[in-house]
């Protein structure tokens, strides 16, 4: 099947670079190489030249028994998406890597056909000719009329970015599994219905035949021996055999091992109400029951699935052989409309969620994971909308498979992987297309790194070698199968492990693969593959198909490691199954000890010495690149800003990537927005009903807020005291005549307002009545209308009365009345000479500094000796001194910065205590500090 000798090895793999030296303070998970700027136009986001399509899409294809591989549909369903990309060709490719033998038929020792409940296989493959890389999810659906009762399908997520596929493998796998589950659930239901109908037909046929025979016997005493009678009798026997077979099939399908699913799912056979997949993203209409589908008159094929009573059996002619001219059922017919629609919805959401550059996706996940871990302090500066969706997700995650909920940890794991760079080198080296030129420096780095590895952390080396590799198969095509399901499922175990470092990440996998490849020198590589995990009845175990396993040294270890993992016991039965099956299908390698692996590794390296290196190719290391810079933790560093800058490049792209209609809507919104300065409130109503993951609208709001904030800090020399007011909990009133202008300032400043809880930010964008003390308690940023009348009006009076509680930014006269700020923090946070140009970049910059602040506040809050007396005879002053020392020496804060952190700490305390169920008096905290009038 895979035949052409067009080989792509890892041509686009990353150039190896040594982790940043001389930055010992940086956690190692962030030690990733900088993006090399060798080529002027090289950008991490430049599209690979080979790609024939503009954006990622999802393809569903079928291996039709009549016409062979054929594409069925793409998501988004827009011909422009694929462009010149040859879907037929690619379908052929992706369908051809489904190695699983979905065994159906008469197994030896059994007289009846057996259904194999095949798990899907998941592979990653690449096609250099098309410039496409794909995550391919194979699944089989049952069809009574199909050969062997099965129809192979696959869903593929196709992207030009190989990295993206690899990085997101687990996520993709999890999400597509849900889609697949959805399809299969519908399919089983439909199949069972079909079987029942068929059975009725058969019963009817039998009765008809019996009647015929009887009739014949009555009319003709010798009829028993006529050829006609014998034919009839044979026919009858066939029908009866067929009945038994079908009954058996029905029994099998009804006994589908639902135990495989999570037990709390109380998944009832053929009840689509509870398929987890349909609720993944929390479709509110998840409860739409199957009965709806069945009764839905609009469903064309629903008529086929009428309630059983209404079905009129048909007489089945003998030898109604399977012929090629009959029309096969469509996918929609196969899986029941309801489930089909659900699946398409799900896939559409998936496509939307995976839009954008991989670095962006990864960072977002990393970000969210980290923030989620800071459950105590994360409410301070995270916007409420994100939290809502999170809470939403969390609700469902509890019900859904564990793998989904823990995806985030995968990213941590990946980022913590110190071996990652070497992986790229090896693959690089091993690339068949690479030109044999050696760059000394690379060698150096490589050696040094490897040494570190071996000496430094044996366990780690062992870990990353303990990768499940099923072997490589030589078939000579441009398709690489980079990874298949086994490894994925292994990894998914690691997701449930609390210790993130225990298990290999995809990068490690790749390293391994490439290492293998150097040895095998196959032109085509299936880097790893495995038979699909099959859930078979116990008596069926023997017939389990073993995949081609060339190199199989470490699976067992992997298994052991898994079992020894603290959570292994808690895994669902699937894992147990796997563990049971694995030994049976794996060829055991005796030399699988870590030390041995190390020895194995060294030849590779020596090979590397003599072979090749290539002038560094334009490689894409976006995520790493970005990470380094974010974590550099110094806003003044230009690299940080550039990185941020670059990252933000993705945003317009993502807009661009929207379907034209959406894009149009978006742009018109943008336009409207720029006209009327509408803040996020107005845009919320435009949301599409389906829950978007993190809506582009909120992104847009961030961008706008960032842009306005940039404008503010550039235009107003007194931006520091204004921001200081907000951060230290002093209400800032923006006073102005023109609502739009005031609101824009409010939007700009809103990013500096700490939240008091999980509710919305305490911002009132526009007020027209005089403020009273309750307003100052409730709102921390207020846009206030200046009344036209001269001073003495109620509004100005109330402002001057409460000037103690509020700083006043006069938008019309460009003055600010607020306390002085003396500190260094805001110099970095709001530098008017900043090189940051883009709003979203600046937003992220601010956000990172604020997060830093909240972690300091966290330390202060939960450091006992900085808060309370240690000894009973401790006096209050000594506590204050300790706290001051803590803030100054340990957190490095000057006087006024300290007040910010103290305020945040108070918020943390209040929030924590309130969350714990104790009611506190909501208070307005203030200080008696004189204000100063700033003018431009």
């Amino acid at each position, binding site marked *: 099947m895979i035949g052409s000798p067009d080989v792509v090895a890892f041509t686009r793999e990353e150039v190896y670079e040594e982790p940043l030296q001389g930055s010992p303070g940086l956690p190692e998970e962030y030690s990733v190489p900088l993006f090399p700027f060798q080529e002027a136009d090289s950008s991490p986001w430049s599209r690979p030249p080979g790609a024939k399509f503009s954006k990622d899409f999802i393809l569903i294809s079928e291996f039709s028994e009549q016409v062979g591989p054929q594409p069925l549909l793409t998501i988004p369903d827009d011909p422009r998406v694929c462009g010149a990309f040859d879907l037929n060709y690619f379908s052929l490719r992706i369908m051809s890597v489904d190695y699983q033998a979905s065994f159906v038929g008469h197994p030896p020792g059994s007289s009846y056909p057996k259904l194999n409940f095949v798990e899907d296989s998941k592979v990653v493959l690449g096609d250099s000719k098309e410039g496409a890389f794909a995550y391919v999810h194979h699944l089989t659906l049952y069809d009574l009329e199909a050969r062997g009762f099965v129809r192979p399908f696959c869903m593929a997520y196709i992207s030009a970015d190989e990295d993206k596929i690899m990085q997101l493998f687990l996520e993709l796998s999890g999400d597509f599994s849900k889609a697949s589950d959805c399809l299969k659930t519908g399919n089983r239901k439909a199949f069972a219905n079909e079987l029942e109908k068929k059975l009725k037909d058969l019963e009817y046929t039998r009765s008809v035949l019996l009647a015929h025979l009887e009739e014949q016997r009555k009319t003709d005493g010798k009829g028993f021996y006529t050829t006609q009678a014998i034919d009839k009798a044979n026919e009858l026997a066939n029908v009866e055999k067929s009945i038994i077979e079908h009954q058996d099939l029905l029994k099998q399908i009804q006994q589908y091992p639902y135990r495989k699913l999570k037990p709390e799912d109380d998944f009832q056979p053929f009840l689509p109400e509870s398929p987890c997949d349909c609720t993944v993203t929390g479709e509110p209409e998840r409860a739409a029951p199957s009965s709806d589908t069945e009764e839905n008159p609009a469903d064309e094929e629903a008529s086929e699935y009428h309630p059983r009573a209404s079905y009129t059996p048909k007489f089945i002619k003998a030898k109604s052989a399977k012929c090629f001219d009959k029309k096969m059922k469509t996918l929609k017919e196969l899986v029941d409309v309801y489930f089909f629609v659900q699946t398409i919805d799900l896939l559409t959401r998936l496509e939307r969620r995976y839009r954008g550059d991989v670095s962006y996706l990864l960072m977002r996940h990393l970000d969210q994971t980290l923030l989620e871990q800071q459950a105590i302090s994360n409410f301070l500066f995270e916007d409420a909308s994100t939290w809502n969706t999170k809470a939403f997700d969390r609700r469902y995650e509890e019900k859904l498979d564990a793998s989904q909920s823990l995806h985030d940890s995968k990213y941590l794991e990946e980022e913590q992987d110190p071996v990652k760079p070497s992986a790229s080198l090896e693959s690089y080296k091993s690339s068949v297309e690479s030109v044999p030129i050696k760059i000394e420096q690379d060698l150096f780095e490589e050696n040094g790194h490897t040494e570190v590895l071996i000496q430094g952390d044996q366990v780690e080396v062992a870990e990353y070698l303990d990768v499940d590799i099923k072997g490589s198969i030589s078939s000579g095509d441009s398709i690489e199968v980079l990874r298949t399901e086994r490894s994925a499922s292994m990894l998914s175990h690691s997701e449930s492990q609390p210790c993130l470092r225990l298990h290999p990440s995809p990068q490690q996998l790749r390293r391994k693969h490439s290492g293998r490849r150097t040895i095998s020198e196959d032109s085509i590589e299936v880097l790893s593959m495995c038979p699909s995990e099959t859930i078979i009845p116990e008596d069926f175990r023997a017939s389990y198909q073993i995949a081609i396993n060339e190199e199989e040294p470490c699976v067992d270890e992997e298994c052991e490691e898994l079992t020894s993992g603290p959570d292994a016991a808690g895994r669902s039965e699937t894992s147990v199954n796997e563990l049971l099956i694995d030994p049976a299908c794996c060829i055991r390698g005796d030399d699988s000890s870590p030390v041995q692996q190390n020895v194995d590794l060294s030849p590779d390296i020596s090979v590397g010495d003599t072979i090749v290196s290539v002038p560094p190719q334009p490689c894409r290391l976006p995520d790493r690149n970005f990470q380094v810079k974010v974590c550099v933790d110094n806003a003044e560093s230009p690299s940080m800003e550039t990185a941020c800058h670059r990252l933000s490049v993705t945003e317009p792209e993502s807009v661009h990537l929207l379907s034209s209609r959406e894009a149009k809507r978006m742009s018109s919104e943008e336009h409207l927005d720029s006209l009327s300065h509408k803040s996020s409130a107005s845009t919320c109503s435009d949301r599409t009903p389906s829950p978007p993951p993190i809506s582009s609208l909120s992104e847009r709001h961030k961008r706008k807020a960032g842009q306005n904030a940039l404008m503010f800090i550039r235009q107003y020399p007194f931006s520091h005291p204004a921001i200081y007011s907000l951060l230290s909990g002093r209400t800032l009133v923006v006073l102005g005549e023109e609502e739009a202008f005031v609101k824009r300032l409010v939007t700009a400043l809103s990013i500096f307002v700490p939240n008091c809880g999980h509710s919305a930010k305490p911002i009132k964008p526009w007020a027209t009545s005089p403020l*009273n*003390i*309750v307003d100052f*308690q409730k709102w921390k940023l207020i846009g206030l209308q200046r009344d036209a009348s001269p001073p003495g009006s109620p509004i100005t009076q*109330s402002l001057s*009365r*409460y*000037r*103690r509680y509020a700083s006043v930014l006069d938008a019309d006269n460009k003055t600010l009345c607020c306390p002085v700020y003396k500190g260094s923090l805001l110099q970095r946070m709001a530098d008017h000479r900043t090189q940051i140009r883009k709003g979203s970049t600046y937003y992220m910059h601010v956000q990172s500094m604020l997060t830093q602040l909240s972690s300091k506040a966290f330390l202060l*809050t*939960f450091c*006992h000796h900085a*808060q*309370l007396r240690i000894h009973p005879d401790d006096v*209050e002053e000594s*506590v204050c001194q300790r706290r001051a020392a803590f803030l100054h020496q340990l957190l490095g804060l000057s006087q006024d910065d300290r007040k910010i952190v103290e305020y945040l700490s*108070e918020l943390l*305390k*209040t929030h*924590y*205590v309130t969350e*714990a169920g*104790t*009611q*506190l*008096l*909501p*208070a*307005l*905290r*203030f*200080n*008696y*500090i*004189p*204000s100063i009038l700033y003018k431009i």
Partner: protein
Amino acid sequence: MLRWFLGSREPQSGAEKSSVLNIGEEQTQNPYTELSPLQEHQGTVRFLVQIDDFRFASAGDDGFVFVWDVKTGEILFPLHGHLQEISAMVVFKAPKFPEGMSNIIITSSSERTIIAWDCESGLQLYKISDFQSTVKSLVVIHSLDVWLSGGSDVRVWNRDCQLLCKTGYYVDGGISALIELPKTCVAAAVGKDLIIFKLSVSENFDQWNISEIKCISVHQHSIQALININDLMFASCSDAGELVIWDAVDWRFHSFESNISDISSPHDSPQEATLAPMHISTDGENVFAAVGRGLFVYSVQARRVIALQKKAHDSNVLYIGNLPNRQLVSCLDDGSVRIWELRSKVHPHAEPVPTGFFSMLGFGKANKQASQSLNKVPENGIVASLDLIGDLIGHSSSVQMFIYFEEDHSLVTCSADQLIIIWKEGKIESRLRSQLLFKILDESSNR
């Protein structure tokens, strides 16, 4: 010490004397850095009474009475029963014996009813409505376990709101103030007169009698307020700075000041404060009086004003009261609250005496300041200073009164802007929150 240097300069500058003392925004000694407005009343909130260490009741012109928790700001009970504004409110504390009895709130309203409420359940216990006129004063006499209402007459009630006895009618505006005196006597202010009643009870507590035993007319103006200074003395005041200190046992006057604001140094002659309303409070040794814009401290022992601030306020004082730490709080008509501290003046020799405030050694001064005062005492007896240590700005309309929770270090004020504001000391609150936080942490880790 430093503060004395700083503080003593304030009244010395001539420029400052002409205008009202203003502290500015920098108030390093003002501990109240947290405030919590409570918004529930729909009219002026006139009365606040403390029930126990953490509860208080508020009553307003909307006729509503609320019981609040000062720690959480929660309304424990809304007490709805009156239709018109509340005219007086008092808490009848439960006796120690028998246990299990609850505190009672007694409120009177201008619809001429009195309602007794149960503090623990929020239920209305009794309603009395046969009054001739509005009851303006209520007083509890714990020694006899009775309470008195003063309107056009004085009536005596027991805990179950049964009328025990009453006096005759006083037409001249009725009784405006009532205080308890030793030996089961009661002093009532009726117009310009002070009337002493004697409450007597038979052996078996079934025969009660209240009789007027003395009527004293000393005040030139109608009496504004009556306060108990200590067990031996009480004070009455009327407009224009009339202050009379009375002996609580034989009801003779101990001292009489026809105009307390007149006492100041001869340099400050203008008498703007004639007929200004007067409010007094006491700490047991001194009587603090707010007359017009000035604030005066009258030492009962020394029988003279020992400290004063002539330009203390720029609007009328509606209420003044003491805090336990020698601080004085004045609630003003303009919505602000000022906190004063009484400090003895200690003048080192090095400091020049700028004005004629101080001259000779003081004598006859028995209180604490006297022991500290050195070799100089001003000729007019000014031996202490009243320093403004802070002002609380939160209300937008006149502040009616305040109460102080000593344990909680919180000040509760109520105002005509329908708000009640709880002022707390930020440092203490922050520490309490930390304690709470670590307690929760401990609990969750032990669990």
